[in-house]
């Protein structure tokens, strides 16, 4: 599995795919990461290809969506009128504008969301690293400090999550989660 096909560093799936194509020499184009094998794009590159497919999906869905809007715009009947074009307010003439002030409680929800979501975002890169360290015993080397094992990683996250839990308990005590 290891050290097989060039251009597939430690990537079993990519190697399977390449050896399936005859295992020719895979040259890697600089920077973009497209691999070429005798003139044509080789399948399943570890980095670039998935994103090309995602771009294709987004483009196709964009075309479908725009086409639907355009088609509806071309087909629909259109008879404008002052009453017809006014804002719906249960049949009464609309009073004022809708863009007034809104309750501050919604703003607080947004603030809280930022706090907690940042924590979840911090978790994502930590999780695979920790899993690798815990199951395969691989220590993580850092550029600035000494290398760290699973125990250190767990302790680091415990400290980080601990701060958050304290903040969470404080908010709870202060009644921040009370809507009414």
């Amino acid at each position: 599995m290891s050290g097989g096909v060039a251009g597939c560093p430690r990537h079993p799936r990519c190697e399977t795919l390449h050896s399936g194509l005859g295992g020719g020499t895979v040259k890697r184009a600089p920077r973009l990461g497209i691999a070429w094998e005798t003139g044509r794009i080789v399948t399943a590159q570890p980095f670039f290809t998935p994103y090309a497919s995602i771009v294709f999906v987004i483009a196709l869905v964009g075309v479908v969506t725009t086409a639907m809007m355009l088609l509806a715009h071309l087909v629909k009947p259109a008879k404008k009128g002052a009453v017809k074009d006014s804002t719906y307010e249960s049949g009464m003439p609309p009073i004022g504008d809708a863009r007034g002030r809104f309750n501050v409680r919604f703003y607080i929800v947004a603030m809280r969301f930022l706090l907690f979501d940042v924590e979840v975002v911090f978790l994502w890169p930590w999780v695979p690293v920790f899993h690798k360290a815990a199951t395969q015993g691989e220590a993580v080397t850092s550029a600035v400090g000494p290398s760290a094992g699973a125990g250190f990683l767990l302790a680091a996250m415990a400290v980080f999550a601990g701060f958050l839990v304290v903040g969470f308990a404080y908010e709870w005590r202060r009644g921040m989660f009370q809507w009414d």
Partner: protein
Amino acid sequence: MVELLKDQFWFSALMTVGIVVALLTAQAYSIYFERKISAWIQDRIGPNRVGPLGLLQPLADGGKFLLKEDIIPANVDKPLFLLAPMIAFGVAMIGFAVLPWGGNVDLDADGAVDVAAQVADPGIGLLYILGIGSLSVYGVVLGGWANNNKYAFFAAMRSTAQMLSYEIPMGMAIVVVVITAGTLRLEDIVLSQIGDGHVWNIVLHPFAFFILLVTLFAETNRTPFDLAEAEQELVGGYHTEYGALKFGMFFLGEYAHMITGSGFIVVLFLGGWHLPGVPGLQPGDVSVGAMLLKITVMAGKIAAFMFLFMWVRWTLPRFRFDQLMRLSWQGLLPISMALAGYATVLVYLGKSTSIPWALGGNIVLLALTLVISQLRQTPVTGRQTNMPAISLTSPAKAR
């Protein structure tokens, strides 16, 4: 042709076209089945006029959406008004791109794997799906804002607060799976649930599965969390001013979101395309026939979740807004944080795939939750304090 399809990009392109067509059809028929199932639950007949069993109803609906007059009210924010349905629909349609449908495939039967039956397989597939999922809030917010309508504005505020609140327990419940599997790649998450000593994550962490399911209901604005379009109080919610196909796109987008969300939960907790012990559905089966079988199984699991969505919609009443907020911040969030912490400790102890440890912890936490929720008195909200007490048992005695 086969030579071209052996290139992952072209195979993905073919799959993309196929899935987009299938999704559009599935959305239209989801509406049909929603109506049929609601009729079944309420002991009615449901749509039965257009075609046999009413099966052509989606076509008739589509034609009607297209031919209706499409009013753009005078005081709306026109660019955003046009953009919002496109975002709501488009964003819901691109989430499927990273779902693993059928594992690896050997197209020319020469014993070597050629492509993966998956549109895109980035190493961060899970982050992609989460990111796209959280973009869907923009469709609602922009729609509600652009309408310049008070009902729509209130609905947009409510809906934003709701989606934001439920995103955090959702993230935490997903962390439970990711820490067990050790990867963010969706195909690898499926593979981590297969093989000797490995079971579907729902067996290991049923409580986390339930939390993810609840948050998924909230994220897709389905009953009992459909406060964004609570028709009794907000007319149509954030799409009050929309008509014709623009409304149709919000409507279809909701179903696309449900389908992608169901696929997501199937991959994370129910083994994706895998059924234990069934030949043809194992990672080693790479023939084209096995791929089609795997896709069918995956679609079947998604359909089961769609049925659950509809069943719940026509069974449960809607939450009140303060109950909704309390459930998220004081219920699901601490529970999911505890679950994620427990799963992390299990990985550290090397017990992450041990059924007694994982399942036992889940059961203990569930019991703890039930006990605490019984001990904690439900807080009386400000409005309720001003109300006279009502005795439900004996009105005569209450006076």
